[in-house]
């Protein structure tokens, strides 16, 4: 592994620690002012609300780590959610698992399509995923013929799936915790993760050491797609509706969560801890706004301000970045 990647790890570690402190401070502040905020019930709700964002942001992080970007995640989510909903409507007795597997499998294929275009044709990731985003949305319309799949068309088991409770937390929350745990362990301990960091940190050096940087991009897109597919099924059953425009524009929120969580758009830097904290930070702000008496319409503005502060701080620290976007010229 290169020195650069090693430094990336320690830098990211220090940043995660500082950001964890900041998130705790925010949490403590809100709790001090409004003791009702820290009730187990409220916190479980907060996690449930943030679960899908956490999963998607972790997938997106992999793509950004290898110098890509996936603008099509929300469209992928919506398409796979629609597939799951249509499947459930057609075979209500089939149970939940086939629907979940169908959505996850379809998501993997869609993600792999992005990955292939980026890997084999070396197309710019932003153009590829901008294109597939439009195509996916259009396909949802064709599949559903523009109609909604409503709550009364979904089977009871399908609707109950994300709402099941275990130790006070919803199934949805547990799934997010599971995905986060896998990422946390895998990003530290596996060879694949090291290769991903290396390919993103310095693709040329990675190539010389026998890592196919393009293949790493492909893998990252496929994993990101799989997560988007799974999230699509969860989204549809949680909100009990599927239509063409679900999660419209959510891709930019997901990318924003990554940026707040310290993932460098230049690639090679980012951690599961940071991304989860970034999502929780957004979640805490979102759920405390009504308590503080600020209109929820301020949420987006606050997110924007947080993103800008985060990227300005990390830009100051950064010494060398991706040459295409280098602005020291």
């Amino acid at each position, binding site marked *: 592994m290169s020195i650069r990647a090693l430094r990336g790890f320690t830098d990211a570690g220090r940043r995660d620690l500082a950001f964890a402190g900041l998130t705790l401070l925010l949490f403590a502040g809100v709790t001090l002012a409004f003791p009702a905020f820290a009730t187990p019930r409220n916190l479980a709700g907060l996690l449930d609300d943030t679960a899908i964002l956490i999963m998607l942001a972790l997938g997106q992080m992999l793509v950004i780590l290898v110098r890509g970007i996936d603008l099509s995640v929300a469209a992928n989510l919506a398409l796979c959610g629609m597939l799951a909903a249509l499947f459930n409507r057609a075979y209500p007795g089939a149970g939940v698992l086939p629907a979940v597997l169908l959505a996850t499998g379809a998501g993997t294929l869609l993600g792999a399509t992005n990955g292939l275009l980026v890997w084999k044709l070396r197309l710019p990731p932003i153009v590829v995923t901008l294109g597939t985003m439009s195509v996916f949305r*259009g396909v949802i319309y064709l599949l559903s013929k*523009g109609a909604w799949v409503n709550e009364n068309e979904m089977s009871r088991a399908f609707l109950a799936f994300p709402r099941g409770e275990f130790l006070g937390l919803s199934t949805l929350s547990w799934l997010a915790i599971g995905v986060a745990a896998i990422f946390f362990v895998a990003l530290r301990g596996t060879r694949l993760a090291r290769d991903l960091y290396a390919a993103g940190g310095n693709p040329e050096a990675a190539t010389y050491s026998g890592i196919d940087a393009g293949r790493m991009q492909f893998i990252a897109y496929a994993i990101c797609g799989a997560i988007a597919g799974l999230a699509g099924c969860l989204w549809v059953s949680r909100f009990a509706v599927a239509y063409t425009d679900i999660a419209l524009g959510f891709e930019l929120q997901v990318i924003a969560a990554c940026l707040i969580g310290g993932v460098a758009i230049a690639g090679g830097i980012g951690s599961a801890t940071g991304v989860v904290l970034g999502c929780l930070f957004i979640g805490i702000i979102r759920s405390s706004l009504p308590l503080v008496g600020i209109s929820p319409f301020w949420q987006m503005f606050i997110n924007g301000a947080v993103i800008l502060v985060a990227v300005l701080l990390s830009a100051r620290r950064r010494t060398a970045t991706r040459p295409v976007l280098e602005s020291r010229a």
Partner: protein
Amino acid sequence: MTVARLLRWESMLALVLVFEFVLFSSLSPYFLNVDTLSDATFNFTERALIALPLALLIIAGEIDISVAAIIALASVAMGLAAAQGVGTPVLAAIGLGTGLAAGCVNGALVTLGRVPSIVATIGTMTLFRGAAYAVLGDRVMKDYPLSFATFGQGYVAGPISVELAIFVVFAIVFGLFLHRTRWGRAIFAIGANPTASRFAGVAVDRYRFALFALTGTFSGLAAVLLTSRLGSTRPSIAQGWELEIISMVILGGVSVWGGKGSIIGVVLAALVFGLVTFGLGLMNIPGIVMSIFTGALLILVVAIPAWVNRR
């Protein structure tokens, strides 16, 4: 070599355009009609106006994702001013000024803050759109004076709308600026190799800042036209336009890697976009179906040359 290639790309776009004309006029008897075609231009003029400066920005190797959010911010600013009884000329100035200020924020983040433009403008996009929501919430502003409607609903002569006239004038100005002046050459140079341009004495950061300010100003101009055409402001105004406008620019043959592109290409792409939207509308095909076509086209545009180069 590159010139020949650009020419080929633009002639392909022109062919697509001719094909669209033939197709739509054979499919709908209402298509080839001066008034119909004049209506059709409203589908793209506002977006195309932003595509012009954005093309320069992308040729210079940067990007601006906040353009649609700037429209929302400028529109809200005008809405608030109009509620105070401000007159039409001042309203337009407020729209343009808000756009300029927002563009300067982007420029400062990229040149002074050293933040990559895609990250900086994702941040400001959230910030600007967020400010529009924070101010308006779920309210609508529509206290615009009657004369304000001239920009978006007026006609210069016959079927030529004010919007179309403004677009044509600026398309010519931008074309001459990019392809016939020293500054235009510098923009290509910056996109092709910023470091070499710096060593060749080009004030790279000054160009970048100016291009962001210009893109912001044109987003402000688009906000004036769009608000005037709709006669109302919601915080969700022009939602999702950023990606459509970027698609327009890339479809026009501008390279996302910077250093390549032409204004004629962007103008042709804008026409192709506008006609497809309108033609499908005439045939009662929903716009979302067209997004499959534009999305695939966008990928093909970059995939074909990549495929050819690989062989």
